[in-house]
């Protein structure tokens, strides 16, 4: 089973501060994803990546940047955090097509004060 880890697991940030959420996967999947999960909205896609050096905008990219420096690592960056970005963030990895599912990390709880 794919292993996806996230750090930190919990984060408190101040408005206007910079926040970096990190994700690491060990199954050599090409694709990685960042979602946020909010009550009433389910999971929404922020950014995703097809491989090292690639970042693509998802459904709600505003206020977020992403970085994929390697196959294993995919970061989500909030340059100027706002209280509206308080949420739970999930990273996932998967392969293109086939029968592979997306494998999710445990989530990161972010509170922006």
């Amino acid at each position, binding site marked *: 089973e794919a292993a996806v880890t996230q750090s930190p697991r919990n984060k408190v940030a101040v408005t206007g501060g910079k926040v970096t959420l990190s994700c690491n996967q060990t199954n050599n999947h090409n694709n990685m*994803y960042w979602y946020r*999960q909010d009550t009433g909205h*389910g999971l929404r*896609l922020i950014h995703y990546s097809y491989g090292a050096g690639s970042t693509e905008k998802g459904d709600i990219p505003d206020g977020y940047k992403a970085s994929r420096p390697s196959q294993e690592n995919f970061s989500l960056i909030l340059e100027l955090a706002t209280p509206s970005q308080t949420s739970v963030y999930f990273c996932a990895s998967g392969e293109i097509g086939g029968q*592979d599912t997306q494998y*999710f990390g445990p*989530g990161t*709880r972010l509170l922006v004060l």
Partner: protein
Amino acid sequence: GDQVEQSPSALSLHEGTGSALRCNFTTTMRAVQWFRKNSRGSLINLFYLASGTKENGRLKSAFDSKERYSTLHIRDAQLEDSGTYFCAADMSNYNVLYFGSGTKLTVEP
């Protein structure tokens, strides 16, 4: 966009009973995935279907791409089945998933 409509938003079951969750899609989807979010907040993969049905224990899922819906049936519900269930639809060849808003299932004694 609202490509995935999930219902009901909340469901309460007594132990030993069953019910079904449903997701309707506004367009043709390549595949569907079902997850359960546990009490620790982690997402657990339940099923991935490109067509037909799959069964795992007390859970059974079906996907009809042509009719644009998927269902998740739970039978003989147990207390540990409580949690929020999400369907997610795969629209493309790049395995990007579009999620429903979730169903909060509460199983009571």
